[in-house]
C-alpha cells in the first residue's frame, strides 16, 4: 500500500506549473494591454510597465525552462522538428520585446535572408533565442545584432551586443555540468544550461547542436552562437 505521506513530485510539479503558467499568462497579457494604453497616452507609467512586462516574461521563460529540464531528465522531452523560416522566428522575438526595446531606445539590427529555412523545434528554439535576446537587451549598451546563416553543414544563429561582454566565470562554465555551477553568482547558469540542453537535443545524422559564448564579435560585447545540424 502506497505511503500516503509520500508526495509524487511529478504530479505536484505538473499541476503547480500549470497553475502558475495560467496566472502568468493573464499577468503578461494584462501588462501588455496596460502598456499599450499607457503608451497611447504618452504616460510615464509606460516605463514602469515595460519593466513589469520584462520581468514577467523572464518568469515565464524560467518556468518553461524548469519544466523542460524536468522532462528532459525523465526522458520525456519531445522535440517537434519541422521546417521553419528564420526571418519569421527572429521577427517574432523582436516583436515580443518591442516594448522594452522602445522604452530603452535600443537599436536592433538583423541579417537574415528571407529564404533561409532550417529544421528545429520552434517552441524550444524560440524560447532559447528569446532568453538570450532578453539578456542581450539588459546588458547591451544600446546596440544588438542578430544574424543567421548556413555554415559548416548547419544553421548558425548569432546574437551580439555592445555591452561589457560575458564575465569570465560564464565563459568558463559553458561546458561545465550543471551541478558544478555556482548559483549564487549573479547571472546564473540556468538559462545557459537550458540552451545547451535544447541545442544538443537537436541532432541530425551523427551531429549534435551546440552553443558557444564568446566576447568581442562585431559589436565588441557578448557574442552568443547557436549551431543546429
Amino acid at each position, binding site marked *: 500500500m502506497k505511503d500516503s505521506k509520500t508526495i509524487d513530485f511529478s504530479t505536484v510539479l505538473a499541476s503547480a506549473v*500549470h497553475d502558475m*503558467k*495560467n496566472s*502568468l*499568462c*493573464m499577468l*503578461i*497579457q*494584462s501588462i*501588455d*494591454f496596460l502598456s*499599450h494604453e499607457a503608451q497611447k497616452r504618452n504616460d510615464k507609467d509606460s516605463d514602469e510597465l515595460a519593466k513589469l512586462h520584462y520581468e514577467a516574461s523572464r518568469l*515565464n521563460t524560467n518556468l*518553461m525552462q524548469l*519544466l523542460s529540464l524536468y522532462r528532459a531528465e525523465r526522458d*520525456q522531452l*519531445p*522535440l*517537434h*522538428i*519541422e*521546417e521553419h*523560416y528564420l526571418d*519569421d522566428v527572429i*521577427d*517574432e522575438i523582436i*516583436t*515580443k520585446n*518591442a516594448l522594452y526595446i522602445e522604452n530603452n531606445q535600443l537599436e536592433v539590427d538583423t541579417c537574415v535572408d528571407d*529564404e533561409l529555412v532550417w*529544421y528545429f*523545434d520552434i*517552441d*524550444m528554439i524560440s524560447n532559447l533565442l528569446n532568453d538570450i535576446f532578453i539578456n542581450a537587451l539588459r546588458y547591451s549598451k544600446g546596440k544588438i545584432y542578430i544574424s543567421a546563416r548556413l555554415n559548416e553543414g548547419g544553421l548558425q544563429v548569432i546574437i551580439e551586443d555592445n555591452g561589457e561582454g560575458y564575465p569570465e566565470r560564464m565563459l568558463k562554465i559553458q561546458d561545465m555540468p550543471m551541478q558544478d555551477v555556482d548559483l549564487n553568482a549573479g547571472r546564473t547558469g540556468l538559462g545557459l544550461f537550458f540552451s545547451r540542453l535544447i541545442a544538443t537535443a537537436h541532432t*541530425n545524422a551523427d551531429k549534435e547542436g551546440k552553443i558557444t559564448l564568446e566576447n568581442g564579435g562585431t559589436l565588441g560585447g557578448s557574442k552568443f552562437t547557436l549551431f543546429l545540424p
Partner: protein
Amino acid sequence: MNALNRYVEKSFLIIDDFADYRTSLKNILIGIGAHHIDGAANADAAIELYREKKHDIILCDYKLGDGKDGQQVLEELHYREVLRNDTIFIMVTAENTMDMVVGAIEFSPDEYLTKPFTKQTLRTRLDKIYIKKEVLKPILKALNRQDLPSAMEHCDTLIANKSKYSLSCYKTKVDCLLKLGEYKKALSLLLKIAKQRELVWVLLGIGKCYLCLNHYEKAIKAFQKSLKINRFALSALDYQAEAFCALGEYNKALTSINNALKLSPKSLHRYKTEAFIATRLNDDTTLLKANRSVMSFAETSLSVKEGEVLSYLNSLVKAINLSTGTIETRLINEFTLELKKQLKTHKKSPQMQVSLNIIKAQYLSLSNDDIALNKMVSDISKQIIGLEGTIRSYLKGQLSYLKNTYSDIFNMSSVFMEYYISLSINNCEQYNELKANELHNKAIEESNTKERIKILKTAFTYSPHNFNMALDYLQAVIKAKGQAIDLSNDELSIFELSVQTAKDIDPADHRNTLFRNYLKQL
C-alpha cells in the same frame, strides 16, 4: 484588402473554459481591431455557436476541462461537415507537449500558438496565415471541391516555383495521394523528402504507405524510427498496433495500443482496437476493461452502437463466470443494471430484444436455474421466428458468439441452428494472419475480377479485421458490379463483413475517404 484593418471585418470565436482568459483574449483581439468576437466555455457550446455564425477565425484552447478537448472540437466540426474551408483554426496550448497526431490534413489546426502570447505575436501569426492561405487558395479551392488531382497540380506549380510553402504543398500532395489510395506514388514522394530530412511526419507517412501496401514489417520499422525521434507520435503507435495485428503478433499490438492510451485516453477507436486485441489474446480482463471504456467514452460523445453494447454485456457475463465473492456480486449488479437499461432503451427494436435476451440466457446458464433458462430459450425462439426485414450484423454476431461460446445453449433449440443456417453467417473464427497476407498479396496480382474476389474472400476469412483486405474486397466488388458479375451468397456475406470492418476505420485515417468513395459507388 488593407492589411492594417483586416481584422475589423473578421469574426472570431474564442473557446476556453477559463472565463478570465476569454476576457483577456477578447481584449487582445479588440487591440488588433476586431469587433465581432464570441466566446464559448466548452466544446458543445462552441460547436453550436460556430454552426450558427461560421466564424472566420477560431482560437481554441487545447485543454477544455472535463469534456472534449480542442482536437476533438476540430474533429467534430469536421465530421458534422460544418467547418468552412477558409475558417482559420488556431490551437492554443499552454505548453509544447502536443501529442503528435498525423492524420488527414483537415484534422490538423492551421497553427499552434503557445500561451502566453502578446497582441503583436497574435497579429503577426494571423497575418502570416492569411498570406499563406492567399498563396494556397487554388489548392484549397480544389480540395473544397474534392478535386484531388487538381489540388495536386496546383501543389506541383508552387513547388516548381520554389514557393516558400513548398513543404506544405508536399504535405498536401502526400495527403491527396493517400486519400486516392496511390500508396506507391506517396511512398516515392516521401522517400525523396526523407533524403533531405527525416522529419517525423515524413517517417510516419512512409510507415503508413508500407502499412497500406501490406508490407507490415517495413511499416513497423518506419514507425519505430519515428518513435525514436518522438516518443509521443500517437499515430505511429496506433498504426504500429495495426501492423502487429496484421502479423498476428497481438502481444506487441497490445503494448503499442497501451502506450497510445497512456498518452491519449480519449479515443473510442483506440479502445475498440484494444477490445479486438484482447479478444484475440483471450484476455478477458483486458476485454472487459476495454469494453467498459468504449461504453463510457461513447456515452459522452456520440451514441453507442448496438454491437458495442452487446460486446460489453457478453464480457460481463464471462467475467461473472470467472469471479467469486464481492467482485462477483459487484459484476452481477453492473450486469443487471446495464441489461435492464438496454432492454428499455431498445424496447422498440425486436432484433436488439432477441440479442439482449440471448445474453440473458447466457447469464442464466451460470446459475442452476434450468427452468428459467428453458423458458428464456423458448421465448427467444418464438421471437426469432417473428423477426422480419434485413437482419442486422449485430444479431448475426451475437448468434455466432452463442454458437461458439455457449454451444450448450445453442443446441437447446433447433430454431437457433435453422436460423443460423438461413442467415448464411460466415464463421470467421479460424484466424491465420500469415496465410491471409499470403493470399492477399496473391489477390493483388490477380487481374481476373471473379478470381480476385474468390481469393480475397478466403483471405478475409483468415483475418476478418484487416482494413486493407476489407477495402480491397470492396474495390473488387465494385469492379464486379461494373462487369455485371454476380456474387454468390457467400461472397455477399463477406461483402457485408468487409463493410462492417471498414466502418471501424478511424475517421482521421486517409483510408476513410477511400471507404466513403467506395460506398458511393456501391
